[in-house]
């Protein structure tokens, strides 16, 4: 395990800038829709506002509901520490930490689902069941992605898989596998972060919601925790995506960091453009889209195994 300053600075930057991704997405969507839109910093204003409020708790809820926001934020926060900046290493890393990565995200989701069911509301129960349905398909996709990366690089940690070995793989026969993987990861990012076409983060229609309906009963700092955790999760997925692309480049740290920043902004814009140019899928068709992502991951893993 290494602990170097650049990794700490990188991760701290992530914690600071994660909500900005939402700001960029919303601004871009507004721009494409011909509106001015909220300021880039609106997600921060919202978080600050939420943290200053009190919480309202339904009498039907118990400790599961009250503890979920902290559990979710802590789990996603730890995952943040596993994500490196390109080849420069993460805050901490060990062999097999991909299971920690996947497990913590799953644990955060479990906490959210249980908290939603704890309210006893029909809406939140439906949201929980939809979330479980979506994750049941998307999580295997993510695991297959890790399998493909592990085969390509021969590494078993997040840091290692995104490190120097991936740089060599681009020019090898495994190159196409990486491209497939990127497409799969982009689709999974949309699904895991409750974006269109899987979920609609801006809707007010509770019967169509997935993520938003699960946090309907949370208020004040609790809602702030969950919103911030959602921003961190989007940051994590976008960082994975950018890191895999960035692994093709081998240059000085400052240049890598700059490209990374630009890449994150471009990813946010790409998410916004997808949301601006298509309607949301019917709920019943969401599994089909996710199956495509899983299939791409599987194909990537198969190619990686074949060319090894």
């Amino acid at each position: 395990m290494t602990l170097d300053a650049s990794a700490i600075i990188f991760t701290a930057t992530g914690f600071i800038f994660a909500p900005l991704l939402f700001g960029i997405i919303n601004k871009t969507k507004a721009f494409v829709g011909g509106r001015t839109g909220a300021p880039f910093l609106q997600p921060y204003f919202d978080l600050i506002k939420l943290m200053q409020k009190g919480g309202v708790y339904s009498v039907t809820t118990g400790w599961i509901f009250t503890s979920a926001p902290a559990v979710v934020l802590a789990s996603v926060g730890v995952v943040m520490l596993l994500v490196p900046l390109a080849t420069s290493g993460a805050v901490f890393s060990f062999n097999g930490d991909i299971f920690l990565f996947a497990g913590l995200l799953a644990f955060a989701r479990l906490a959210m689902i249980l908290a939603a069911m704890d309210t006893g509301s029909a809406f939140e129960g439906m949201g929980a069941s939809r979330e479980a349905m979506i994750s049941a398909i998307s999580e295997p996709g993510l695991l297959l992605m890790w399998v493909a990366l592990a085969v390509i690089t021969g590494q078993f940690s997040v840091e290692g898989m995104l490190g120097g070995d991936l740089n060599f793989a681009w020019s090898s026969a495994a190159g196409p596998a990486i491209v497939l993987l990127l497409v799969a990861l982009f689709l999974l990012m949309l699904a895991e972060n409750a974006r269109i076409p899987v979920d609609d983060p801006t809707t007010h229609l509770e019967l169509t919601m997935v993520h938003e309906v699960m946090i309907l009963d949370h208020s004040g700092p609790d809602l702030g925790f969950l919103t911030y955790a959602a921003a961190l999760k989007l940051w994590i997925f976008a960082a994975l995506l950018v890191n895999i692309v960035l692994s093709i480049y081998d240059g000085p740290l400052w240049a890598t960091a700059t490209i990374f920043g630009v890449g994150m902004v471009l990813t946010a814009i790409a998410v916004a453009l997808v949301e601006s140019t298509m309607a949301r899928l019917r709920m019943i068709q969401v599994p089909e889209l996710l199956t495509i992502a899983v299939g791409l991951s599987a194909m990537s893993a198969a190619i990686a195994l074949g060319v090894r």
Partner: protein
Amino acid sequence: MLKNGQSIPLDSIPESSFEQFRSALLAEVSGGARVVNFSAQPIGEVRAILFAVLADDAQGSLRVLKTRVDDSYPSLTPDCPQVHMFEREMWENLGLTPVGHPWLKSVRSHDDPANHPFFTMVGQDVHEVAVGPVHAGVIEPGHFRFQCTGEVVQHLEVQMGYQHRGVESAMVGGPHKRTMSQIETVAGDTTIGHAIAYCEAIEALSGTQVPERAQALRALALELERLANHVGDLGAIANDIGYLPPAAFCGRLRGDLLNVTTTLTGSRMGRSFVRPGGVTQDIDDAMLTELRATLDTARSQCVDATGLLFDSRSSVARMTGTGVITADECRELGIVGVAARASGVEVDVRMHHPTGWYESAGLSPVVETTLDSLARVTVRRNEIEQSFAIAEKLLKALPGGPIRVTCADLKSNSFAVSMVEGWRGEIVHLATTDADGRFATYKIVDPSFRNWSAVTTAMRGEQISDFPLCNKSFNLSYCGFDL
């Protein structure tokens, strides 16, 4: 027999026994007629006169059936489902029991839910979802009760009445000074539609001939109301499926069209424009030019805005097959307006029972046959085009002359029906006068009163996550139902 917008003496309507009434009504309905109104006039403590108005769309005529009942009568609903809401309404308002009605509960009052249980299903897989009356968006209050198995809706029941104001009972003894304002707020988004229906009833009862220019201006206002609402609906539907660019575009265009209405009527919603005998405001040549220019621009922009929605495969796919209601179901339930036309049922008062300017318009109904949300959206898009064409035609050859005449007093002991194709569908007003020429009864049927049954039918077997889209594709009024 009478035509839309005519009055006849009450005595001239033959009164038949209930059996004759029943068989005549069923025979007319099986012959293709629609029940556009079924209501009662109370006489004394329990007795009441039932009026049924049947529309023959092919002939463009209305037939009135009349009978006298005590406090109960055998329900017609099992044989003629389209009267089901009317029978429930009469039971609630006057205590007339339709014996054998399959689902007899109040339409508007819900003071004690124990008296009016919702339809429920039992079983391990069934779960119940209650939505409203307070909703997440800024919309009207109404309660929706879903019986679901997983994501699939097995049954939906809609309970309205949260905005019941007693409009109909306030009309009795009228017309009062405030009657016109009350009529204009029966459904705020159909101000012009209801105002025209009311004024045509008054004009029929007083034997007033409305000047041609006023008729044309009324038609123009009605089409502008249709335009603004249809455009607004397309935007709202785009918003509901998460496709924001057309939502913003249509929202802006709706504002432009409301501004055109302001130029014409002095009010964005067309208030205080239509009055018995004509309209209150005339337009001069400068306004005419302005209206033409604005409508021309809006017309081409509407093509662009609806193009955004229809050129996107994902949004077309999203709407295809969602919320299907067949033509047979529409006919059985007496569905009207956009919803019926999207299922291939040709009902449009402007063509089948035209009054005023529409008598010489020679329009044909906009019909779609795919039965789903996409069909309802397509009907709106094509009606937008049709309304622009009508408005252009009107503005090109606006008849001259006065815009208003004075109405005489209402004839005593008379009966009048007036129907208007509002943007949502058929608006029916029925008025009877007493010996002094005041309203004895006044019955309003907003299209929403008929069409909420279409929403519940269309949701059977659908995904519950598709309800908001399905509901918005009908976009019914709550206050128009609640009266």
